[in-house]
């Protein structure tokens, strides 16, 4: 991201050092000037609704602070971070991905995560008895995103089809369960789950079929349009979906017919343990843990099957894929359908956890968050999705607890509102810095042993023709 990369005059080392500093300084000045121009009307002035129209007030201190922060930050970055790869452009990743440097890391991380996730509710209950509900809630949220990320990973990471409307399948799953359970008394969570998955997969086929011929960004924008169409229909079809009011009173899941409530015939009375509301959360946690695990296992198994290889081949080069006799239509449709199915499962779970759903929960930004998790984790990497979900969703939750920041930035400072800004910045920076993912990269499962001179991520596909 160096604003300009000047050639250094060859000469004494001291001279070079000096010119390096001068260059860094000049670059920082340019960056600060640009930041000043860009933020002038946004940070420098603020428009507010006032009696009798809009009012505008100046915020010079904030503006000057922002410019100074950019200047200092850029200078420090130039001197200490970009300094070593000065003449190199930032497009080529210099260091190998984390997983390559530590080959066994992925395996160990996986085991550690698994064990940790397995005992997590009890750890929370044992060590944080006062806040266990909050911790388990966050864990459930993270697990939901892990599952969604894994589902989307099949479509985006493995098959290379950029789907910006994934949240539509999440919505289909949630509404399927909500509508089925509110219309038919006998349908509970476990009956509705496969139905919701099948419906979502069906929608995956329906939406996938027309877009088969499209590639890359056209596909992305059409899936985005489909996602929005589904949301707008959910919002306006009052008789069926309740419109913006949504659907409430969605039943909670039961443990083999045992409800998590007080009194006779409940989970607590059947096992003869005292009733505690935390049981339901622990149970919900294990449901989503199981669902996510199934997603992961299915994906891992599929990846070893011909269909998985076909997905990866499709991602690497569609034309080569077709000329080798792979049926790209079926390959793409299975990816869409299977990805959508897991989205539907997650949607059902979301509905039963919340007890209430409305179209508000299924906006484009949700798709973008899931996509961000997949991208940041490294397209196609399973463990990467987990780490990205923990960092991004858990990080958001952590932002809520950064109360001390209000001492620095004043009482009106709310870290949570910076959440999406940080999401977006992270997406940009990670893509620029390590286009194949931050945590790990996923190479094709099978490949010719012969090394290409140009890496797979630099092949002509990216030329934009």
């Amino acid at each position, binding site marked *: 991201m160096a604003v300009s990369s000047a050639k250094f005059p060859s000469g004494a080392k001291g001279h070079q050092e000096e010119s390096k500093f001068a260059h860094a300084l000049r670059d920082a000045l340019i960056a600060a000037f640009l930041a000043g121009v*860009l933020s002038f009307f946004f940070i420098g002035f603020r428009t507010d609704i006032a009696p009798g129209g809009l009012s505008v007030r100046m915020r010079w201190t904030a503006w000057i602070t922002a410019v100074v922060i950019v200047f200092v930050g850029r200078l420090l970055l130039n001197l200490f971070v970009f300094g070593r790869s000065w003449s190199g452009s930032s497009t080529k990743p210099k260091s190998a991905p984390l997983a390559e440097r530590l080959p066994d890391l992925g395996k160990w991380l996986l085991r550690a995560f698994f064990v940790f996730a397995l005992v997590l509710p009890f750890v929370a209950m044992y060590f944080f008895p006062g806040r266990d509900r909050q911790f388990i809630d966050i864990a459930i949220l993270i697990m939901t995103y892990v599952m969604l990320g894994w589902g989307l990973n099949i479509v985006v990471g493995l098959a290379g089809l950029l789907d910006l409307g994934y949240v539509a399948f999440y919505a289909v799953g949630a509404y399927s369960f909500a509508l089925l359970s509110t219309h038919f008394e006998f349908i509970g969570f476990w009956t509705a789950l496969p139905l919701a998955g099948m419906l979502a997969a069906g929608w995956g086929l329906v939406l996938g079929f027309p877009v088969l011929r499209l590639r890359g960004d056209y596909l992305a924008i059409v899936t985005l349009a489909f996602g929005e169409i589904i949301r707008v229909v959910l919002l*306006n079809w009052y008789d069926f979906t309740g419109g913006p009011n949504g659907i409430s009173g969605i039943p909670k899941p039961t443990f083999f017919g045992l409800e998590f409530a007080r009194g006779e015939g409940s989970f607590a009375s059947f096992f003869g343990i005292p009733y505690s509301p935390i049981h339901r959360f622990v149970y919900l946690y294990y449901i989503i843990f199981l669902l996510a695990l199934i997603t992961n296992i299915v994906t891992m198994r599929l990846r070893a099957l011909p269909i998985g290889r076909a997905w990866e081949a499709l991602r690497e080069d569609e034309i080569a894929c077709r000329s080798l006799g792979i049926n790209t239509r079926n390959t793409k449709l299975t990816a869409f359908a299977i990805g959508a199915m897991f989205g539907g499962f997650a949607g059902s779970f979301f509905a039963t956890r919340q007890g209430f759903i409305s179209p508000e929960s299924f906006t484009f930004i949700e798709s973008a968050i899931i996509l961000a998790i997949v991208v940041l984790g490294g397209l196609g990497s399973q463990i990467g999705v987990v780490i990205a979900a923990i960092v991004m969703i858990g990080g958001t939750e952590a932002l809520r607890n950064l109360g001390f920041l209000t001492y620095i930035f004043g009482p009106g400072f709310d870290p949570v509102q910076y959440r999406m*800004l940080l999401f977006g910045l992270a997406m940009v920076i990670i893509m620029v810095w390590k286009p194949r993912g931050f945590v790990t990269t996923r190479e094709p499962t099978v490949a010719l042993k012969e090394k290409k001179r140009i890496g797979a991520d630099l092949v002509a596909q990216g030329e934009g023709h």
Partner: protein
Amino acid sequence: MEYFLQQLINGLTLGSIYGLIAIGYTMVYGIIGMINFAHGDIFMIGSFISLAVFLILTSILGFAFLPVVLLIVLIIAMLFTAAWGWSVERIAYRPLRGSFRLAPLITAIGMSIVLQNFVQITQGARVKPLPPQVQGGITLIPASELTGGINVQLSYMQILIIVTTVVLMVGFTLLITRTPLGRAQRACEQDRKMAALLGVDVDRTISLAFVMGAALAAVAGCMFLLLYGVIDFYIGFLAGIKAFTAAVLGGIGSLPGAMLGGLLIGLIEVFWSAYFTVEYKDVAAFSILAIVLIFLPSGLLGKPEVEKV
């Protein structure tokens, strides 16, 4: 008939705004073959800058003569929004040139999120209502028994929008067809490598495509603000998708196509709201996007894309 005529005028006005945004999409797609997903948010930025400049001029500096104020607002908004367009390209797209195909699209989505949230944080999430500034109009057909009591009116605001759009389009077409800058643009559009070999500064040309697209989006943003009088940080998303639909409908990469597509989308949206349902007007735009991309990927005026192996 009179109702139809009135809707036609409204549709053309809205279509002009979409057309101005669509040009930014089509130019960038023509040169580097990517969807500048953040372009809708550049439009939103332009709208906010226009609002700020307008308020500064009228309430702090005390300017009262509206035409001069609007002219200054337009020029400053174009300049500052162009700076935003340039920076977005510089930060998010240029480092990824030659990377795999989806990478710039993902940074574009990231950039879009960044821009929206930046504006939300710095300017607040609430809508900004601006009372109508340009009032009055010409009555083409006065209300009478014959017309069923409908007044067909061409407001000054609509005249302003349509005239500005026409002037900008003529200027822009001359820029692209008659100047060395336009020649470089067209050369890069045809073959970037060859253009570079023949001494065209490709990076600069691409930057300029973003700058020009952003400047036109700023005009659209300013017009949107004056026409509707309400903006918030989220307007760029829908307007961006509709303008992109317009660019695709007209044939992506084609400048007259972008304008034609913009007018068509504006007309379709207005007529859909007038004769069918207002709630589903966005669905109409999205459906057209999907249908055009699937069945007519080269659009009305575009060249069919040849798949290279």
